[in-house]
């Protein structure tokens, strides 16, 4: 299963990549830490490593290492505003439980 982005997320990622002036794409990953086990990582990517899977959506490369992909498969990256705050959101179909903060989860 692939990793996708909503139109709004893609527009923001593109803007930030342009502003940054370098980078091959966006890296999504999962780290095993946090208050309910697993935590999301969202970073600019400067290179694609041997163990990375590369998805292309909205003409943006989304890079996920194979280890994280087992936890992220089917995820859609969204962008949301909440009051004055705004940022990205993982819509991850594998998630069973979140700690309520949206930063860590269990599957």
């Amino acid at each position, binding site marked *: 299963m692939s990793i996708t982005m909503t139109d709004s997320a893609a527009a923001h990622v593109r803007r930030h990549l342009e502003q940054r002036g370098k980078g091959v794409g966006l890296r999504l990953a999962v780290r095993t*830490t946090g208050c309910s086990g697993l935590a999301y990582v969202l970073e600019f990517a400067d290179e694609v490593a041997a163990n990375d899977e590369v998805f292309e959506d909205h003409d943006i490369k989304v890079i996920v290492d194979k280890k994280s992909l087992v936890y992220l498969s089917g995820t859609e990256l969204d962008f949301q505003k909440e009051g004055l705050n705004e940022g*990205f959101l993982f819509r991850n179909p594998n998630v069973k439980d979140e700690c309520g903060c949206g930063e860590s989860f269990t599957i």
Partner: protein
Amino acid sequence: MALLQISEPGQAPAPHQRRDAVGIDLGTTNSLVATLRSGTPTVLVNEAGEGSLPSVVHYGEDDSITVGHAAQEYAVTDPMSTIRSAKRLMGKGADDLPGTWLSDHYNFDLTSGPMPAFATNAGPKTAIDVSAALLKELKAIAEKSVSGELVGAVITVPAYFDDAQRQATKDAASLAGLSVLRLINEPTAAALAYGLDANDSGTVVVYDLGGGTFDISVLKMQRGLFEVLATAGNTALGGDDFDEAIVSMLCELASFSGELSSGAQRRALQTARQVKETLSEQESVSVDWHIEAETHWSGTITREQLNNAISALVDQTLTPCRRVLRDADIEKSDIRAVVMVGGSTRVPLVRDRVSEFFEQPVLTSINPDEVVAIGAAIQADVLAGNKPDNDLLLLDVIPLSLGLETMGGLAEKIIPRNTTIPIARAQEFTTYKDSQTALALHVVQGERELVADCRSLARFELTGLPPRVAGAVRVQVLFQVDADGLLTVSALEKDSGNLASIDVKPSYGLSDGEIESMLQASMDNAAGDMQQRLLQEQKVDAQRVIEAIDSALRADGDIHLSSEERAAIDELIDNLKNSVKGDDSAAIKLAQESLEKGSSNFVERRMNASVKHLMAGQHVDAVAAQLEESEKPQDAND
């Protein structure tokens, strides 16, 4: 729900450990707050969508404090308590007051303390109080705009501010409950916004023409720091003077020679501003100016006419420009960049003249109203520790994640691989069994999910834990890796203060090849590892349920259960215990669910019993009253 931002590679923060910092341009007429969102500097806006907060504070008779646009509303009805331009008084004494714009417009209380205070409806207020009110508002906007708590702020001050003025700014921040990461000079912030710190040497000129003030600064980049070589300016020259000059031109064009009433004056200035702004974009503009009751003037104004009207004023700014070059003892050819700051630098004539004067193109790509706040935000982000400072320090990273063994033989990573050292990370752990008095700590290294697949570094034990129910004892485990790569792991039980620790050198004996193969194994076994992790978590959860029901049975199983019921639960427990020995995750889950279901009657009876115990010997009404009482909010002096 936290909304995530995109981090630099390897810099993604651990959950709930985002370090949000802001840059604040605390201006004489307007103030702004900015932060980095996914690496992009952004000016934060309030609920009304306004990014610029007028530096105006109104003090009401009821001690209410109004800030910004709302405070401006009081300028006409309650001018003495509507404080603007307080920045001009920061760090100043009573001796500095006579003859200033402020002393002409406000009443002062010089007896309330060492600092002169504005006499307002709410009593004497110093410039620090007024600035604090503005900072509080900016802080509130910032806190609503980020997910975490603010680490602190970088606040900008004019380059010519002396120590007393800088200290006053810091005092205002602390009154506002804002931690100051650093004060930086406004021109320095503007240079940072354009990334001019990337070169390690060179001279930069910052031309700052605001609404009412003009500042010119010469900065020299040395060893990664901007040094202010010279400043000059004019505290009574700015875009407002352009507007007045345009009004004069309009009067001349309309052949209007009388005195304008105050309402007409306001309309005229508004028309002038529109003319100025439109002609910054276009070559000509058609104007319909409502002068007085029946008098109108309409016609076309060209950019050339505007230029003629303001030419003398623009030239006035060039005198200080000449002076700073002389003071800093530099030639125009030494200057690497000219940065334009302040809304009035949008006027094309200003850009042209300044560019002509310094004999080079001027930098205008960043919004001149926002450039100072943006530079401050970039600096704040660096100071908050969100950027690797590769240019200045060669930092080492840890090659493999460091972590601890948790229940079920799982590896819990405390410091992820590629984290720059030195680093310290703490995590809290708790006991798993009732009355557990010791905690075994197993320090492991590697990327795999199961401890068996990671490298064991050290084992030690924390003893003397207070005997409590499972989960009630809190142990803080701290991983520290110093600049030499030495890992120290310590465990502290918070209530008793019991401490145990161990030193390890984690990279010892590992070749690059071994590290590489450990990484590769974690990739190759990703799917299997995940299944293993799920299975182990299922097992740990099942054990917890067995543990809980077992201890309940021991406590009062005989009281609440008939022997048949007891046997049924025992069988379910045995069933689950057997499943846990196997590796079938689904079977464990099923057995656990049947045990939870099978023992629900028992759990219910225990709860009823404890409620009855609470109410024993009391009349129902008394109990109800008691319950009601306990739900009421308690008074502080109760």
